[in-house]
């Protein structure tokens, strides 16, 4: 009964000139999203910078946040990617900060500022 997460990938360029893969997330992010989100993350290719766009996300629970943490764990192990986040509601920005995600991923208000910071 958990709603699906839709994930689309598009490309952008960071202010530094580096290519960035933006993963647009839409719908709900819960335990049911794990496989699809990690697949999309792995399929982002050799880019060193990945942005997660939450502006189309309606609902995220602690299992959904754990998927983001899983991505950060992989990034930390491999040491080859930077993850940024934008488009969170003020509430979820607070929640991501509470659980510590903001310590390991830059949280920006929108795409333009996220690209400028990368």
């Amino acid at each position, binding site marked *: *009964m*958990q*709603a699906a997460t839709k994930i689309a990938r598009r490309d952008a360029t960071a202010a530094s000139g580096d290519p960035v893969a933006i993963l647009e997330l839409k719908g709900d992010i*819960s*335990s*049911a999203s794990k496989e699809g989100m990690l697949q999309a993350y792995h399929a982002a290719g050799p880019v060193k910078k990945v942005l997660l766009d939450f502006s189309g996300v309606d*609902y995220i*629970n*602690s*299992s959904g*946040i*754990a998927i983001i*943490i*899983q991505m*950060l*764990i992989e990034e*930390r*192990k491999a040491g080859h990617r930077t993850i940024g986040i934008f488009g969170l*509601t*003020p*509430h979820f920005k607070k*929640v991501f900060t*509470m*659980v*510590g*995600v903001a*310590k*390991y991923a830059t949280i920006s208000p929108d795409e333009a500022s996220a690209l400028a910071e990368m």
Partner: protein
Amino acid sequence: MKNGSSVEVRLPSELGFEKIAMSTAAGMASLMGFSEDRIEDLKTAVAEACINAIEHGNKFDDRLDVGVILSSNDDELEVKVIDDGGGLHSTPASPNIDRKIAGEEDPRGMGMFLIQSLVDEAEWHKGPPGKSFVRLVIRLAKENS
């Protein structure tokens, strides 16, 4: 809304139905005059309490329901989330992001921490026999503090 008003919802023990409890809690809190940001806090706390009840309390057993009782009392909204589990044996430690990133702690396990952080009161109780419940409270007084 009259003081002492109460609403009860029964959810199947299946993930996803916590959103029904979230919507109901949001509607009740809105009627009581809570601000949008407090309603968002409550929605997340109620969702996490229901997920724990579905997953750990009722262990996804489709013969069991999760009960959600919302009651307005003076300036507070109380939410009880009831399951058929044995309740908590101990309160888990607060999540530590550094340990999670280092692989020393499960990336999950943040639900209870979020509940405790987002509402004014959170208590876990055993009983009545065969049941356990979590009681959450948010207060209107905090809106003005």
